[in-house]
């Protein structure tokens, strides 16, 4: 069961007490609780979402990892599974959903499209990877990744959670509360508010080249 990750190493617990007593520290207890109840946002973009649903069903049974509770509301979710192609038209909504999720929150880029644009990278409406906007914790390769691959990715996420410490996580640091990611704007093309000066400079260059 879970005692292996809950118990601090080096403490002997007699076999008859193993499911009753744990000797641990606060970080381990805290991470143990969090890693065993990661609630994903019920949110699918494309083909990968189907494999995400399949991972929830009887054969793969994501419930074994405490992740079966898909929340349709971002306010109740810890994990955003970006399952599918991120399009320019959709990305403002995705960023807004991410901003609405409370800390601690994680992002898994599921599949080739969410990781880097995938087969549709050259498309005019496709964002070449969600990591252009959101901090991604785990990338899961595949097109689409099999449910096993997704579960492997989620186990990596659990391992990442295990390594965190209350003393250093960003959401407990003074003034270290997350700054919202600026929501992209739909212009003649997708405008990232953080890159406005750069866009202006390149567009002005283009105008100068057109004149000459």
């Amino acid at each position, binding site marked *: 069961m879970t005692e292996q990750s809950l118990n601090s190493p080096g403490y002997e617990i007699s076999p008859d007490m193993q499911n009753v007593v744990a000797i641990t520290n606060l970080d381990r207890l805290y991470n143990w609780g969090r890693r065993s109840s990661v609630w994903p946002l019920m949110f*699918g973009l494309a*083909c990968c979402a189907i494999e995400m649903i399949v991972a929830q*069903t009887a054969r793969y049974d994501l419930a074994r990892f405490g992740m079966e509770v898909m929340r349709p509301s971002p306010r109740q979710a810890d994990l955003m599974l970006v399952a599918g192609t991120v399009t320019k038209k959709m990305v403002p909504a995705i960023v807004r959903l991410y901003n609405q999720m409370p800390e601690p929150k994680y992002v898994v880029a599921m599949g080739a499209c969410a990781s880097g644009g995938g087969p549709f990278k050259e498309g005019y*409406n496709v964002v*070449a990877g969600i990591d252009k906007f959101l901090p991604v914790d785990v990338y899961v390769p595949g097109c689409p990744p099999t449910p096993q691959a997704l579960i492997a990715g989620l186990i990596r996420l659990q391992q990442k959670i295990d390594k965190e410490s209350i003393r250093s996580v960003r959401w407990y640091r003074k003034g270290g509360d997350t700054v919202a990611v600026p929501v992209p704007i739909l212009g003649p093309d997708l405008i990232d508010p953080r890159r406005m000066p750069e*866009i202006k400079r390149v*567009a002005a260059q*283009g105008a100068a080249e057109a004149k000459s």
Partner: protein
Amino acid sequence: MSMPSMGTPAPVQEFVDLSSRFPGIVAPDSRAGFTGWIVAAERLVEVATVLRDELGFDLLSCVTGVDYLPENRMEVVYHLNRTTGGPGLNFKVQVARADPIEVPSLIGVWPGADLQEREAWDLLGIRFAGHPDLRRILMWEGFEGHPLRKDWKEAFYEEDGKPFKSRWPEGQLQMAEDRNPLQDNLSFPPGFDPEKWIPEGDALLYGSLARYTIKDEQGLSTDSIVVNMGPQHPSTHGVFRAAIKLNGETIVALKPVIGYLHRNHEKIGERNTFLLNMPYTDRLDYFNSMANNLGYAITVEKLMGIPVAERAEYIRVIMAELTRIQNHLVFIGNLLNDLGAMYTPALYAFEERELILDIFEAVSGARMMCNYLRFGGVVRDVPPDVMEKIRGLVHDRLPGKTDEMERLLTENEIFLSRTKGVPMIDGETAVQYSITGPVLRAAGVPYDIRRADPYSIYDRFEFDVAVRPHGDLFDNYIIRIDEIRQSLRILEQALKGIPEGPVNSQKPQYQVRVPAGEAYGRIESPKGELAYYVVSNGKPNPWRYHVRAPSFVNISALEKICLGKKIADFVALFGVLDVVMGELDR
């Protein structure tokens, strides 16, 4: 609920001589490899009305545009069918390629033209005069340009056709980002200032909703609320959004907002070689990759004029029908989710689906994105042990499981009261709105392309076209069960009749030779009429590659279906349309 198989009428071109009926207005399309008629734009509506009312072409299958840049011409292509069966007919309208490009709208003749005309406006910049709500549909308002025009280049543009020279034969490693000054998939018009940009937002969308006013019995205007469902909403099966105007709980106006998964299938497809498009078709309707492959394969085979290996025909039918079964199972599970029976029926459905996906994985190597068909056959043979597995599924497991599904749901009191007598659409309206597939058949119209215009080897099998008379939610559910049973019948016959032999009539090849011309191939996908319109100019890449996706066209009727219904029923009414976003937005 069965109907006799229709005879094969003579090809339409022989007895419909439009050019003598409309001298000087309609002329046959005489380009090599092309069929159909060319209609003068001014008289388009008149010709279309005659085609519908006198010649019986009641179903507008497909509207799309083609940009003939070298000839400086824009062409709108219409494909018509008869719901009584037989081959289709196409006609074209040609206009000079100078802005504004304008063609009369056919929305008055076939209301189903609505979304397809909007798509042609959005992607090709063809204005449809008389269209009441001509807004962009897949891209957003304010987007620069019409992307499917041949002179429109995207940010990561490299070359007009694949394989790109940088990849083959030279084979340099080059990132697409390095070619773009912003190191990203972005391009802005010269001199653009993002700080001064005012986004259009949804002003036009809400403007088109505002035209619907609500009056109560005394003739007083009452207030309404606009509710946005989606693009992230658990009931919308993906990233669909509906802007709904409500009077209390009653829907008075509804506008579908789509394009959140528009991944430029057609633009990429026109850059790909013919064969390279095959894996992309997998990702259209990602539940039914085998059916998508089949539609594309038969379209290009029509153009190439090559036969299909006999054994491969049987394998194709087996895979297409297995696909239909798993699609309908998932549909039933999802419908019950939508009705509030969260998960249990869906878990039953997915259990059977897994077994079918195991077969797909065994033959093609992938569970969902099979990429299994090739022009002339399939990519590799079905191993004997997999064939045994299919037999086991078809003969032993699936019939019983279908009965079990029915026992679980069909007589369930709550399910019945939620679905029986909730009207969806009647047959006549469904035809006007170009609805195809199970939704049309549940409204009493026995139109199934496997019978109406048989493709592949469907004419060899004995099966009934499932039809239900009422067109309510319940009929839309039970017809899927009927269709699963019919698919099992076809599978039994196909498994009995499958011959030994090669699985491809052609040698394996990377580059296929496709002669110039056009082809329109259609199949009965589990969701409706899936058709591809491909124009080749003899080069390795298609000049035009259009997908007539059933999900997209069926959505045209969504507002009609939902008007006057309660908002709580919207979820179920939308659910039975069985749309998939990959195909809807492409």
